[in-house]
């Protein structure tokens, strides 16, 4: 049993010929793998590496560098909410707070109980004239308001497409957040 379908592996093997040097195929290949199984598991990355005749560690190194590659399961519909300055000035923080409540998650990356939704805060998406905005299902959503967020969620809850999802992705047990111990201050405050 492999992580990726035989058909997909064949497709990945055909990628290197499209580029001046075969290594350029690594990102398009990871893209295909992620599209097929939702996120990049270690097995999937190894299979991509074998198909492209690259070192598995190398492939993982590339995957971990770029934010659009997901190494953990994601909701079927992921909100990429811009919280960079232009969107924050127009109320992105409020949008994120509302979104968390509306899909019932406590933090970025967590998947809603029905497996449909997750969100992450992202850096500028280059649509600043429509702030606050987000990317959802490969499309930009502009001029976000609390009502608009509710509507986006509701549409996806009732859409027949979501009923076709074979199995909702398992909700990962909440991962302990890496916390940095507060640094002891050795210098006196206010000097």
């Amino acid at each position, binding site marked *: 049993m492999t992580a990726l379908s035989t058909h997909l592996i064949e497709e990945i093997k055909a990628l290197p010929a499209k*580029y*001046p*040097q075969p*290594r*350029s*195929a*690594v*990102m*398009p290949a*990871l*893209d295909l793998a992620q599209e097929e199984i939702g996120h990049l598991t270690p097995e999937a990355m190894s299979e991509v590496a074998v198909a492209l005749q690259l070192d598995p560690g190398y492939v993982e*190194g*590339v995957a971990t*560098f*770029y*934010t*659009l*590659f997901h190494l953990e399961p994601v909701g079927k519909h992921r909100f*990429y909410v811009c*919280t*960079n*300055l*232009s969107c*924050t*000035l*127009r109320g992105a923080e409020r949008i994120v707070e509302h979104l968390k409540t509306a899909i019932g998650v406590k933090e970025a990356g967590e998947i809603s109980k029905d497996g449909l939704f997750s969100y992450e805060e*992202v*850096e*500028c*998406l*280059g*649509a*600043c*004239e*429509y*702030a606050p905005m987000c*990317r959802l299902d*490969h*499309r*930009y959503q*502009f001029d976000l308001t609390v009502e608009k967020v509710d509507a986006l969620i509701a549409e996806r809850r009732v859409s027949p497409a979501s009923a076709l999802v074979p199995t909702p992705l398992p909700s990962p047990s909440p991962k302990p957040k890496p916390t940095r111990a507060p*640094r002891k201050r050795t*210098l006196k*405050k*206010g*000097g």
Partner: protein
Amino acid sequence: MAEQRGTVGGPVLTEWFGTPDLHSLDVYESLGGYSALRKVVTEMTAVQVIDEVKASGLRGRGGADFPTATKWSFVPKDHPGPKYIVVNADESEPGSAKDRYLLENSPHSLIEGAAIATFAIGGHTAWVYIRGEYDVPYEMLRDAIAEAHAKGHLGDHPFGSDYALDVRLYRGHGAYICGEETALLESLEGKRAQPRSRPPFPAIKGAWGMPTAVNNVETLSTVPWILRHGGPAYAKRGTEKAKGTRIVTVSGDVQKPGNYEIEIGVTYRHIIEELAGGALPGRKIKVFWPGGSSAKVLPESMLDTSTDLDGLKALGTMGGSGGIIVMDDSHCVVKAAARLLRFYAHESCGKCTPCRVGSNWAVRTYERILANEGSEIELALLDRVQQGLQGGRCLCGLGDAAGWVIQSTMAHFRNEYEEHCLHQTCSVEKALVHA
């Protein structure tokens, strides 16, 4: 698609914007599109193309402001192997959306410009590196390239000539650093996007080890107009040294955020108050970033500053990628700077130490300040960190930009920093509570 917010029917880049279905080849061609490429491949030599662009005075619109014709002429003419034009469509400078605006309106302008540039450097393929989040622009470019191939404008015999030309697409996957040209090339080669040390410069050893010129979307989209109307017609616009027009994105606390085509040399007051409608009702503009978050901030009192690129350089800031972020008196400068530092720390590629360590130090310092744990120590620390980030200590400009945010906000708004650090208070927020 959502309603377009910005200039339509402008002088150069947005000349045809507003025409229904401009993104389709037929409409684009009916207005005169592809006539420049036709002329180039059937009547002109590479040297003539470069001379025409030189006469226009066009400079790179990605932020570096480097003369485009000069960049092309650096690519060796006698190189035996492939040479490439790489299009930087990885627009991700906070506050900048103009490349997206151009691509969504007129993808053929970029394709035509990229093909002309490829001809000018003696190459045959242009690679467009487009950020992964730009789904719609990617799909539009993909379809437009297919149309151009089907019509015979690209391929082995564009317009019946024997000069093969192709435009290819490569999608990024979310990394601000890819806007830096050597990091972009690394990414295009299937690697982690970490900037290269130079020399060798991309013109000698660029994509896949071959001579390469990396150009921004807006720069190349301007090229067909220049070839249609002649370099001197373009050079008539703008200021004596900074020629032509450019697109600025205005965002933040203004009434009409949007992408506006401006003649270089108009003032920020004109852009912010007239084109973008000025401050929101009942608010006052406090500060603006004149060229993306990486440009040093200017206070409201400097709204009359000209967009002339050399003038901005003289002020120590820059026109950058044209993203103008406007902030009014309801927002705290320290918080805004803290948010931007989080951005730079997140996007630091980790290759060189001052940027990797310095940006994270700054973030932790800002966190303490905003948690009301600040003191003189934090003020001094921020100052030390910003110095350490700047001055060519990093491989690329990301570290400098992070330093400039700290330095310029502290220089103009020292009072807000002192309130937070020394008195654990924020007059901006207090004013809002009592309003």
